[in-house]
């Protein structure tokens, strides 16, 4: 592929030799940091939002206040939280992980509650009639049925986190975002293009893997019957994270 001309100084959009020269140290290191910084919050957020969502579904009175808090958390710009946290956690991974965990919560808690609320009443009653206790009913009936909605939330949170991590580059904690700041400082597009492409690939790959997991765990969704419900659920989810 011939280098695409760009910029007023004739600098190509991509210099392939820069990529091969920096592949093993700069790029690989940035990618490693990016993976840690984006997946730790997803994992933590998932672990917290599951019990929180269950509690909200069980005690309905908790839901409205929780929803109000998560919708405010959702609106808070990640960069603002990064900056405020520096005073408490310094320039460490924690400064990036905490805001992104909060963001994950703001997407996942409504997902868990809505997913559980979507379990039809007759299914719940049938499970009870078959002698399922509350815990077994939750694990074997309600959670599996809620899974597509929960997974939709998890996918949104994962993909958004992957792109939000790069904002941390402003404080030197941005994984692949470091490539952007390198490019700006040197007025050199190649690292920026590499960073953007890798972030997008990482996000799409993670999304596909999560989709695969979801499909593996919900074989009945593919068997027909309750088709055509999912698109509406996904559309109603808020899109993307706030930088």
């Amino acid at each position: 592929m011939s280098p695409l001309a760009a910029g007023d100084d004739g600098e190509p959009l991509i210099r392939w030799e820069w990529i091969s020269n920096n592949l093993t140290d700069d790029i690989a290191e940035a990618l490693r940091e990016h993976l840690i910084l984006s997946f730790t919050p997803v994992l933590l957020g998932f672990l917290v939002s599951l019990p929180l969502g269950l509690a909200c579904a069980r005690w309905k009175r908790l839901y409205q206040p929780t929803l109000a808090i998560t919708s405010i958390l959702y609106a808070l710009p990640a960069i603002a939280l990064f900056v405020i946290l520096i005073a408490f956690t310094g320039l460490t991974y924690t400064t990036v992980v905490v805001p992104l965990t909060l963001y994950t919560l703001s997407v996942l808690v409504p997902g868990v509650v809505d997913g559980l609320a979507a379990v039809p009443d007759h299914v719940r009653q049938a499970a009870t009639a078959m002698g399922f206790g509350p815990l077994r009913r939750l694990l074997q009936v309600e959670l599996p049925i809620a899974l597509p909605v929960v997974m939709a939330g998890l996918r949104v949170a994962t993909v958004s986190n992957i792109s939000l991590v790069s904002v941390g580059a402003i404080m030197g904690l941005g994984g692949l975002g470091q490539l952007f700041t390198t490019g700006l400082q040197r007025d050199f597009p190649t690292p920026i293009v590499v960073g953007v492409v890798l972030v997008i690939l990482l996000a799409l790959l993670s999304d596909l893997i999560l989709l695969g997991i979801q499909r593996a765990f919900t074989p009945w969704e593919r068997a027909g019957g309750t088709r055509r419900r999912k698109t509406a659920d996904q559309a109603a989810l808020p899109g993307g994270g706030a930088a």
Partner: protein
Amino acid sequence: MNAIFDALSWFGESGQWSGPDGIPSRLAEHLWYSLLAFLITVAIALPLGLLLGHVRHGRLAGVVGFVVMASANAARALPTLGLLILAVVLTSAGDLVPILIPLVILAVPPVLVNTYAGVQQVEPGLRDAAEGMGMTGVQVALRLEAPVALPLILLGLRTAAIQIISTATLAAYVGLGGFGRYIMDGYARQEYDQMAGGAILVAVLAVLVQLLFALLRRFVVSPGVRLQTGS
């Protein structure tokens, strides 16, 4: 907690509320970038969503639906900072264009997807009734579909607005103004109170926009539609 009090006392310092580096003029800059990006976004995404929502039958409908949904996913994956810096490095255009490009790219998909989904979800029976009453295509779109789709459209607009407000902070990173100026300058000079002050201002602005849209929803969504969507 001391750090937070330092940041709060920053708001009380003299000179903070006037001059080109004062909070009012930074607010005006921030709102100016955001409003411009928001208007461009709405001008592109709203008519497109209303139009595409009409493609309901045949193979084309499947393709349109897939492309619209995929655009939403792809938009979430886009690293805004990267797009912004790339736009700055590549363009030699005036100051404002590089920041508007990523803001609009980021904000179009939520508006597009929600408008599209909102129009698609209008019950066929309602549409038949409207046509039976003799409404023309344009009348059906404006008097029936737009009001029924309004809750979802507002959700899309709110998401877009919040993302624009948050992301406009990054404008300062490439030399423009706005509240991000405090964060970038504070970071460069290692003045935590200024950084945190800027961060608090952006956060407050974003939350205010969130509340504004909650109010807007209360006032502009038709009571009948509100009952249906259960809020």
